[in-house]
């Protein structure tokens, strides 16, 4: 029991180093220590390039995107820059679009299913690899490969594996007596296909982060539980899972932000099709802006901005949770 009460005391000391990366020097610290008066201009001279960079290459593109969504752009006015201001017309257009409801549904399903499976598989693997057997470190490193591969490589490999006629997946299904599935060309299966590929890519991230979380759980807790006669299943649900909750929250929230913006995989494998059956907000936005011969920049930017809002909302929750954990 002693160990449990020790846990919260241990964390801040470790976290502090990282917290400095996110938080400004705490006022209390600054006042308590009479720090040498390091001139502010020197500090900001070092920060100036990155500040300018943020303004030019983050804020300005975002502003341009907002501007795009509030005007009626055509190809001509896009080049000349004299598109009329139309207020929220692009947004209402997007909301009334027959693609809106399916895109929303697909985005929610894609994100939720990917998150659940990535987390569950990642956690199971993290617990497994935490047991320190021969080769465990090497095999764990190999699990990083899907995460490191360029997305176009993963997506094209999965495309060929899921090919209806010549893919290995259908060949394997045939061997066990299941008929061929049109993974990428049937509206019933396309979303499932891109979800499978994306889970494969996301598992390593969950594995690595959750594994690092497992390492901070003191081994003596497990020894004590084993002495009390708890079996492996009980040890997992009574010790590992509850103590991993902070890390789990962070993993899931960050995973949520990452999954919301997944574009490459879906676009390369199905282009959101067939018949919009795997369209999410990310692919829909691109489809509107760049996917057609006649680009609809305004509505495309509007969809994109909805996605930005969603990502930022969950991103802020993530930052809040993370800061709360760092301070507690």
């Amino acid at each position, binding site marked *: 029991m002693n160990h449990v009460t020790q846990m919260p005391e241990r964390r801040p000391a470790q*976290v502090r*180093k*990282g917290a*400095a*990366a*996110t*938080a*400004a*020097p705490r006022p209390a610290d*600054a006042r308590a220590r009479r720090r040498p008066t*390091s001139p*502010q201009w*020197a*500090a*900001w001279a*070092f*920060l100036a390039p*990155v500040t300018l960079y*943020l303004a030019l*290459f*983050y804020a300005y*593109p975002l502003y341009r995107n907002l501007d795009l969504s509030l005007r009626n752009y055509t190809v001509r006015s*896009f080049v000349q820059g004299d598109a009329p201001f139309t207020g929220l017309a692009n947004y209402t257009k997007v909301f009334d679009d027959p693609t809106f409801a399916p895109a929303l549904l697909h985005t929610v399903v894609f994100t939720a299913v990917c998150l659940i499976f990535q987390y569950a598989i990642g956690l199971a*693997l993290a617990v*497994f690899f935490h047991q320190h057997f021969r*080769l*465990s470190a090497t*095999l764990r*490193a*190999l*699990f990083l*490969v899907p*995460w*490191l591969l*360029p997305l*176009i490589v993963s997506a*094209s*490999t*999965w495309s060929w*594996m899921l090919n209806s006629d*010549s893919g290995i997946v259908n*060949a394997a299904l*045939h061997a066990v007596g299941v008929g061929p599935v049109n993974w990428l060309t049937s509206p019933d299966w396309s979303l499932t296909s891109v979800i499978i590929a994306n889970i494969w890519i996301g*598992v390593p*991230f969950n594995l690595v*982060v959750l594994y*690092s979380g497992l390492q901070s759980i003191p081994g003596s807790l497990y020894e004590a539980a084993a002495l009390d006669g708890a079996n492996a299943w009980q040890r997992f649900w009574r010790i590992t899972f509850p103590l991993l909750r902070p890390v789990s929250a*962070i993993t899931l929230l*960050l995973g949520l*932000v990452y999954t919301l913006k997944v574009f*490459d995989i879906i676009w390369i494998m199905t282009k959101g099709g067939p018949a919009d059956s795997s369209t999410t907000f*990310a692919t829909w*936005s691109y489809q509107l802006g760049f996917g057609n011969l006649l680009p609809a920049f305004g509505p495309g*930017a509007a969809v994109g901005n909805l*996605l*930005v809002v969603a*990502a930022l909302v*969950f*991103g802020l929750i993530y*930052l809040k949770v993370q800061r709360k954990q760092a301070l507690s």
Partner: protein
Amino acid sequence: MNRGAARSWWKTTLGLLLTAVMLFPVYWMLNVSLTPEQDMRKSPPDLFPAHGTLDGYRTVLDEQLPYLGTSLVVGLGTVVLTVALAAPAGYALAKLRPRGGGILSFLLLAAQMIPGIIMAMGFYAIYLQLGLLQSVPGLIVADSTLAVPFGVLIFTAFMSGIPGELLQAAKTDGAGALRTFVSIVLPMSRNAVVTVSLFAFLWSWSDFVFAGTLVNGGAHEPITLGIYHYIGNNNQEWNAIMATAVVASLPAAVILVLAQRYVAAGVTAGAVKD
């Protein structure tokens, strides 16, 4: 003792099996890249490249070298730009206690959450007016947005660990902030430089969204577009496509072999800060 060893072997076997399942797509990519054209549509497909051919790789050498060259240049450019921007910022945030530094850190974290296609659309609108579409420097700047916030984060965390006494001593010896940064902080942060460079290169090398919107159809296209055009043209030479994919995966493989500890550090740094 004996029982423990037996249990450990059982786990190793299971571990090998799980790794094999996980890496099957990678194996399949290799297998298909070596499969001769006439066996490509065979049903069921050959599980091993028994009649392996290097035709696919020959096609890569013939057709994809310019793409690979562009990717290399863009990747290295992104690394230089990212480190040049992120290292001084990390130093300032970690050691110089700037007023308003907290807000800047917060903005950098928020910046990481903006979906790439939205950035791409904004860049497209700007580059169109500036005439920077289909230019290599334009792509380098866009790709660097993938890595700069992460870079600042890593540098800040790493440089916080440099003992303050050391910097104080330098100051006593009359070194200014710039001098301290160049001759003490930067050399001591070699590991952080390596980590940030690796990821900046990998992300820029793997980028598809910016390449697809900003340099598509131009004279200098990166390897990701090379593969994409292959697939898009309804190309049936899947051995060539997969061979290109294998070559495009080489940086990832090199990074995994040479710098695995940096990779794991990088993955966790973004998420769990302890």
